[in-house]
């Protein structure tokens, strides 16, 4: 379960989920992206050129436009049970009616059997999480992070008036602040993350001035991808089913 902290954070949350799906899909698996009809109007349709840059091949993306939550959940279960699908993303809209504990558990079981990654992406967060979400193994909250994160504030302010070249500096790789608000396997925390679109790995974003404590960095890398892929090549095949890892369902 990945939620956007605010409507403007929809991009950051989508990037996080897209990057996770790209990691899970590797070079072979397909990604089933299920979105409810209204979600596209509210937060925009996923757009292939952007995903291509992120490292997720649009040719391996199958999009299902579900009319309602029930259809989305049904399709997600079918997708998670299929051996060809490496990741299923569910993007519901509004209050998720009918997403009870049983539905959440079913998804978790299907994901556990096949080893596929199941993520629910909530772009327009609403107070009160559905009961089914308690089956999710981890819950993330994404908010955007300024490119100038950590840099002197004066410089950011100056960017507006200075020459173009100066202003462009810092508009770099995707950055986001990921907050782990629930974790069935360990602690929670929040980390600034950067997605390396050229090597397809998450990195702990470093402050411009001064680096973080090395311990924190290692923890953050593990939390971002507990299958310890952060250190491995992007095209490594998905972990074997049953390996104790981050398998989100819902």
């Amino acid at each position, binding site marked *: 379960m990945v939620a956007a902290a605010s*409507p*403007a*954070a*929809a*991009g950051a949350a*989508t*990037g996080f989920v*897209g*990057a996770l799906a790209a990691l899970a899909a590797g070079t*072979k698996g*397909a990604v089933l992206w299920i979105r409810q009809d209204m979600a596209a109007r509210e*937060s*925009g*349709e*996923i*757009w*292939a*050129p*952007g*995903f*291509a*840059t*992120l*490292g997720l091949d*649009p*040719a*391996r*993306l*199958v*999009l*299902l*436009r579900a*009319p309602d939550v029930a*259809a989305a959940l049904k399709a997600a279960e*079918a997708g998670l049970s*299929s*051996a*060809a*699908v490496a990741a299923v993303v569910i993007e519901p809209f509004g209050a998720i009616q009918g997403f009870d504990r049983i539905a959440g558990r079913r998804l978790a079981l299907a994901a556990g059997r096949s080893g596929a990654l199941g993520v629910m992406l909530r772009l327009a967060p609403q107070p009160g999480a559905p009961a089914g979400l308690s089956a999710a193994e981890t819950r993330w909250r994404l*908010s*955007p*992070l*300024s*490119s*100038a*994160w950590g840099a002197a504030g004066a410089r*950011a*302010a100056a*960017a*507006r008036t200075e020459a173009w070249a100066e*202003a*462009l500096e810092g*508009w770099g*790789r*995707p*950055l*986001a602040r990921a907050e782990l608000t629930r974790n069935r396997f360990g602690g929670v925390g929040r980390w600034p993350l950067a*997605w390396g*679109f*050229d090597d397809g790995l998450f990195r702990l974003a470093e402050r411009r001035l001064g680096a973080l404590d090395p311990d924190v960095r290692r923890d953050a890398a593990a939390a971002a991808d507990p299958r310890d892929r952060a250190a491995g090549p992007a095209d490594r095949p998905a972990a074997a089913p049953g390996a104790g890892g981050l398998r989100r369902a819902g």
Partner: protein
Amino acid sequence: MAFAEARAVCPTLRAAPADVHEDERLLKALADWCDRYTPLVALDPPRGLLLDVSGCGALFGGEESLVEGLVEALGSHGFACRVAVADAAGPARALAWFTQGGVAPAGSSRDLVARLPVVALGLDEAQRTALLRAGLKTIGATAARGRGELAARFGAKMVATLDRTLGHDDPPVSPLRPAPRLMVERRFAEPIATVEAALAALAALADALCGRLEAAGLGLMGAEAAFFRADGRVTRVALGVGAPSRDPRLLLRLFRERLDALADPLDPGFGYDLLRLSAQTAEPLVETVRSFDEGAAARAELAELVDRLAARHGRARVVGIRAVDAHRPERQARFEPAQTGGFSEAAQAFERDDGPPRRPLRLFPAPEPIEVVAEAPDGPPARFVWRRASHSVLRAEGPERIALEWWRPGGAKPTRDYFRVEDEAGARFWIFRDGLFGREIEHPRWFLHGLFA
């Protein structure tokens, strides 16, 4: 006869306004029902049906018993009908309307039609009167005149009508539904009243159909199951697959998905007396040795999943993405039904450039208007309001000028200047100014088009 006159003869006569649309709907429903005799059923409005029963008689114990059964079955539903079978559509039509009907012996229909009065030609009042004035009372007498003579006096259209009615000219029946490539069906003497039993029968039909497909070296692309209810209602369930297939289990599984997702579930009512499974479209399918390539197996698995999802949710809802060479960003990625294979062939079509992302992850199908404070004429926005929330821009990249296709119909659209901007919270947006300031438009409007990670 006027209504008053008719009521004088029969005082209990009641009048009801004609409902043309309801009649048409009823005729269509009847045509659907007649589908059980032949796949080629055409409407002959306003009150006729045309069935091409060539070769179908044998399945019903001869054409006589076919007609008998048809009249009896329709009669039990409360319809009075007259049926004529003839060598061609034209004569059959004339015989049905102007004689007692029945089966005309092969080769004799032309003589039978020749005896009919000229009314049977179905001409308009003026032409009919003209024919009668010329002393031509029967179709035979008319046909005996030279064609040139008739055409000179009554027009070429009348001659064409004459030829059609006599069967000289037999245009093909244009059926209500396209005839399937292959079909299998099963009739039940005693209607089956449960959905489970119907599905079991469907499984047997799927086996039979796939056997026949195999013998023909075909795989089906589209299938249709028709459930004929004893009371005349016909439910048709159609589905399509992405790649030619003749696997009965897959077919049955897809039908189950489809039936599960039906808005109004299958209702057996008094039971089904006929089930039909047809391959609407089929393509050659050569059985290949199972590939040892893992990728092929995964692709097949994915195709099956796509078929299943499409069967349940509808073909148009399961889409793949295909790159389109277009200037306008919203046209660059097109969603196409994944069953057409769009998702496997579009590979590498989107360029993946190094460096910071230049294209957003989410794109609004309709760009959202925003209010912007920007430097004229070409400056990036300094502040904008989107969905009633104000964002001040800390960094911006652009403009990236995208000229829209002026050669497209609908006239030249203004040039768009795209900016990638980041607000104080770090959220990144893709916004554009619609038109060049002062040159194309006096006060160009701004839109928000996408969201970056």
